[in-house]
């Protein structure tokens, strides 16, 4: 099946980046519901459905996660590792979207189950271009397993 109205979780602590990514998504006409987690622990809480994220109606499990790496409290790689260890979350598409392409991060991210590693582009135009190609690839063409993740 294709990804239509599935939730996207953006794990990003920098509100400027949140603003710019939101804008780019909108411009690229990616209209999926967007949830924000502003640090690593919140991301884990959200995915585990604990604390303020207990309500799955309000905070549905995402099909796609944009994960920043340099995060307060829990590093993005720790989040990735945690997700990797949860069998129930193995179908979530995790895309690392971070500021820099450190080789050690890239290696580690793929080892921990990231499907893609992207560097935040320096300009809005490039960010838009990136979002458009994401939309085409991951949303228009990519096939996903039929059984959605259990709530």
């Amino acid at each position, binding site marked *: 099946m294709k990804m239509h109205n599935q939730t996207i979780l953006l794990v990003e602590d920098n509100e*400027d980046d949140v603003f710019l990514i939101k804008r780019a998504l909108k411009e690229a006409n990616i209209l999926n519901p967007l949830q924000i987690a502003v640090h690593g622990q919140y991301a884990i809480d959200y995915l585990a459905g604990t604390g303020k994220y207990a309500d799955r109606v309000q905070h549905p499990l995402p099909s796609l996660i944009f994960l920043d790496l340099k995060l307060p409290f829990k590093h993005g790689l720790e989040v990735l590792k945690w997700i990797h260890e949860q069998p129930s979350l193995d179908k979530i598409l995790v895309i690392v979207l971070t500021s820099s392409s450190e080789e050690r991060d890239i290696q580690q991210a793929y080892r921990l189950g990231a499907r893609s590693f992207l560097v935040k582009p*320096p*300009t809005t135009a490039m960010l838009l271009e990136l979002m458009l190609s994401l939309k085409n690839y991951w949303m228009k063409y990519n096939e996903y397993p039929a059984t959605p993740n259990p709530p």
Partner: protein
Amino acid sequence: MNDQANPAPPSQFDPAAEPSASYDSPINILIVDDEPKNLTVLETLLEDPGYRLVRAESADQALLALVVEEFALLILDIRMPGMNGIELAHMIKERKKTALVPIIFLTAYYNEDQHVLEGYGSGAVDYLHKPVSPAILRSKVAIFAELYRKRRECVLANRALLTEVTERRRAQEQLRDLNETLKQRVTEQTKALRGSEERMRMAIEATAVGIWEWNVLTHAIRWDAQLFRIYGIAPTPDGFVRYSDWSGAVLPEDLPESERILQDTVRRCGLGRREFRIHRRNDGEVRDIEAVETVRTNEHGQAEWVLGTNLDVTELRKAQKQLKAHAETLEKTVDARTASLRETIEQLEEFSYSVAHDLRAPLRAMQGYAIAVLTDYGDQIGEEGKDYLQRISNAAQRMDRLTSDTLTYSKVAVVPMPRESVSLDKLIPVIIQHYPQIEAAQAEITVASPLLPVLGNEIWLTQAISNLLGNAVKFVPQGTTPQVRVRSESRDGDVRLWIEDNGIGIKPEHQTRLFGMFERVHLNEKYEGTGIGLAIVRKSIERMGGTVGLESDGETGSQFWIQLPAPQKKS
């Protein structure tokens, strides 16, 4: 050289000028008379196998004969036409060579001649009155002949003596030279010997082994002189000591173990080795002793004798300890330095990681918001406002590039850069295809395949070559299609890769600083750049063991090159 043993030649003889005559050759006598019959008379009178008579019928003939030959005696007629006998004698006496030849004048009368003759003095000159008495003549001639013979003998003897003396002197000199050489050699050898003796003595003292023997049956213990020295104990006349002389010297804490090993060695009838410390008796110093002993058995296989050696190894152990301590210190220093270096690298990595993330985020925001304002409120702020926003966006982008290039540069200096054989023929098309700035320039890039392989690090070589290609297509005059030629050549076992463009070139005066950090030689507005790209090229190539450079006249393009070792050919 001319010293005591140089006898002067006999005064009246010049040995060199003297005849080569031997002892028994006939004696030459020159007879001079203008009357041939007188000469014949003289010949008759003086006939003797011991004489050889030479005739001269005038003074001139006589002189000639005197030049040619040597004569023992002249018999001279005074009355001669032309030069008379007196005048001839005068000339003869004047010539050094003939001055001493005796002359017998033959004179007819007692006259004025006699005074002249007496003037010569006796010995060298004599005279006879005519008519000559044959007996007197013969006897006078015989005397002169004898005189001559004696003289000749004397000269010959003298010559022989001289020869011998010369020979001896030469021999003496040779001997002296030999002596000198010998003496010198002896001195040298003595010196060397003394040195080696000194060393030997030191070596003996340092490693001198003291020996002891112990009769197991009688319990007699005997030491050699060196062992007494090692223990600082005055030797006993016969060398016998008591067991307590040894055990009392050993440090109490070392004694039990040492005794146990010794007893064990005796029981096993084997070979034992111990190390213990002693108080040296004469100065109380603690010395390290290494002991080895062996047991000699009798025909029944029972221990009979124990023979042992002691070696003072204090200095050796001290040196070993120092060496070990030194090595440990060195190791610690190396460890500390390595740790500090590692820490530095880690800090640097941490720093660049933070820079990469934290420094770039605000720039993205600046750029993003500026564009957001431009997009959302552009029509409200006028052209000038829009221009300012664009400038903010451009500045932010530029800052972002600077940041990432600086990061790259900081990495190129420290990251490991393992080298391997890299095929430029494969790498360069990939770079051309995948680097957006190269593709965007729509340049004509010609690759002169096949390119030679190099020894380098592929990741950083990719970075360096893409930087050079990026420059090659960037710095071209407006409206010109960039044309780039890539070729390789072999150079002194290295490979040089040329990247030649048709760009604006670089003036020779700018070329030296071109590869420096933040160096830009073109105006910002026309050609964007951070001034780090070539610094990265140089640093990375240098870290691969290569060099970089360029050729350009500043007008018709640049020819950049990087030179790297050629990979080892696999045989």
